[in-house]
């Protein structure tokens, strides 16, 4: 792969992450912040795989899979907490 194309795609994804981070910083309610963090986590999962292609390390696929599992469980726990408390 062309390294310049990969760096440009990584920059585009980081731009989306920055927008989600702004929403998580200034969202009016708690649900807005959680929605922003949830989208940021999904973008991070995609960017970890892209980073593995950039650095030619296959271990980043495993890191991405574990990150996706932990983020899924975390978002479910936060949603349950918002709904009825722990």
């Amino acid at each position, binding site marked *: 792969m*062309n390294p310049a194309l990969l760096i440009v795609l990584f920059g585009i994804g980081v731009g989306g992450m920055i927008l989600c981070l702004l929403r998580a910083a200034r969202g009016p309610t708690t649900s807005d912040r959680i929605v922003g963090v949830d989208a940021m986590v999904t973008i991070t999962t995609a960017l970890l795989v892209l980073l593995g292609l950039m650095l030619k390390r296959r271990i980043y696929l495993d890191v991405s899979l574990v990150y*996706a599992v932990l983020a899924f469980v975390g978002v479910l726990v936060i949603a349950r907490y918002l709904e009825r408390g722990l």
Partner: protein
Amino acid sequence: MTAAIVGGILMSIGAVFLLLGGLGIFRFPDVYNRLQAGTKCTTLGAVFTIVGVGVAEPAWIFKAVLVAVFILLTNPISAHALARASRKSGVALWEKSLVDVQQAPEGAEEAGAEAADEPVEETAEETGGAEEPS
């Protein structure tokens, strides 16, 4: 060479969808609008990006498809849990939203109540019939 080109195209589509998902989360007026924009665009973008990496590097295709299928299965579940939690915790809709499903007209509520009552009576009769022989 062809695999690299196809993978690059898929990754480009995915990255653009990731950026659009972030833009929707930043610009939309409401929790629920933000949730649907963020979830759909971000899921599609992540799946396209990861499958594009798998196509560009053919030795990685199995784990890449595994990660993509996992995201495709779990992301709607977490979005649904977040939407239900924010609805039950009392986050208001946008003031220009037209339809609020949970404030349905009275006829729909009565129909739902009747449909909910009928199975209860049947189970009561069944338990009563079961108690008589004993």
